[in-house]
């Protein structure tokens, strides 16, 4: 049994969500533990009980944010018919979440901090693994042409999405989220030698809603 009081098990996710918000707004350097505490409605010692440093807080906040993104996708992915639809959903969901601020924060810190580099690697491997999994399944089922190893296609797609998201985040008017999605879809369809089926009416209504909200 953990000696920690029960209440802290509820606090931790709240702290991580608060940290993700504050860090995205101000950056790690300008974020004080007290700011995170205030956002989460607790005290600085209440934060420090869980996290030794701001870097640890960033690493865990980002991991938690990615976990939430994954969880929100899992249910929707399971409802999908096949790998083509699943890949399409992964791309559309990336365009929805086109604010890459926390990722940029992680890239910057990964340049100099081995622990942050390891965190970035783990999250990127997971994301690329998910793409590669669906590519492999589609190739095995004969739905996609065998144009190369799934890991390579995942690397191209992940790189492309990051690069496009960067342009969208920095406000290049030519690369709005909808264009980002369309360009990524066209390239991946080329790599798979197959068109990715459109999402069901219910899913596309949801995507349209999210894209409008994001603009």
């Amino acid at each position, binding site marked *: 049994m953990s000696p920690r009081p029960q209440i802290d098990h509820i606090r931790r996710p709240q702290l991580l969500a608060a940290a993700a918000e504050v860090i995205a707004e101000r*950056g790690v*350097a300008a974020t004080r533990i007290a700011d995170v505490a205030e956002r989460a409605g607790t005290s600085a010692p209440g934060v420090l009980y869980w996290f030794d440093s701001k870097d640890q807080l960033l690493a865990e906040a980002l991991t938690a944010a990615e976990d939430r993104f994954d969880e929100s996708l899992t249910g929707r992915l399971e409802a999908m018919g096949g790998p083509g639809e699943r890949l399409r959903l992964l791309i559309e969901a990336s365009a929805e979440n086109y604010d890459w601020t926390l990722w*940029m924060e992680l890239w910057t810190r990964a*340049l100099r901090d081995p622990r942050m580099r390891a965190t970035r690697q783990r999250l990127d491997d997971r994301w690329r693994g998910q793409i590669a999994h669906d590519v492999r399944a589609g190739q095995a089922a004969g739905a996609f042409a065998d144009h190369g190893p799934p890991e390579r296609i995942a*690397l191209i797609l992940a*790189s492309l999405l990051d*690069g496009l998201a*960067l342009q969208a985040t*920095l406000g290049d008017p030519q690369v709005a989220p909808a264009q980002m999605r369309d360009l990524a879809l066209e390239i991946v369809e080329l790599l798979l030698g197959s068109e990715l089926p459109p999402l069901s009416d219910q899913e596309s209504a949801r995507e349209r809603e999210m894209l409008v909200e994001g603009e």
Partner: protein
Amino acid sequence: MPGDARERILEAACDLIASDGIDDVRIARVATRARASTALVHHYFSTREELLEQALLHSFETAGSERFAEDPDAEQSAARGVARAIEVCLPLPGSQERDWTLWVELWLRAVRDPALRPLAADLYGRYHDWFAGVIAPGLESGEFTSERSADELADLAIALLDGAGVRALIRDPRIDVERARELVAVRLAGELGVEPGSLRISGR
């Protein structure tokens, strides 16, 4: 000459941002490295923030004018021009790696600072226009065959270079700079309807 001192200060700031990270750069260390007094640094830059931002912009101005300059061999073929463009945009060891590190710092900075954003968007715009200008002659002459416009192809090239380049820069064990070059060249060659080998600078 006063102009030289300002430039030396900016260069020193760039070196320190690249080696220590922007948050750990101190005016006193920039001054020492630039062989200037802190008073002189403050003469040119009223705040630390201003110095750091000017340093990031300076690095792109310098890198841009050096690398985006006309290639004397460009007339040989448009593919050769694209190959050279890929080459100068990768985080190769040395000055390109330093500039890349500053590039990543600028991305993050620009997202948070509304004042810096138009400047970053302008730099990105120039980067884009330059790349589109390298691709366009090949589309016009028929050396490249693509249904996409030079602008779309430039967006694509830059996205791949940034996405693959940042991974190589951070030492992703599954993609070094060689692999980043190959990934961009193969994908772009497919888009332009040319052999991937034609987008590689021979002898490398």
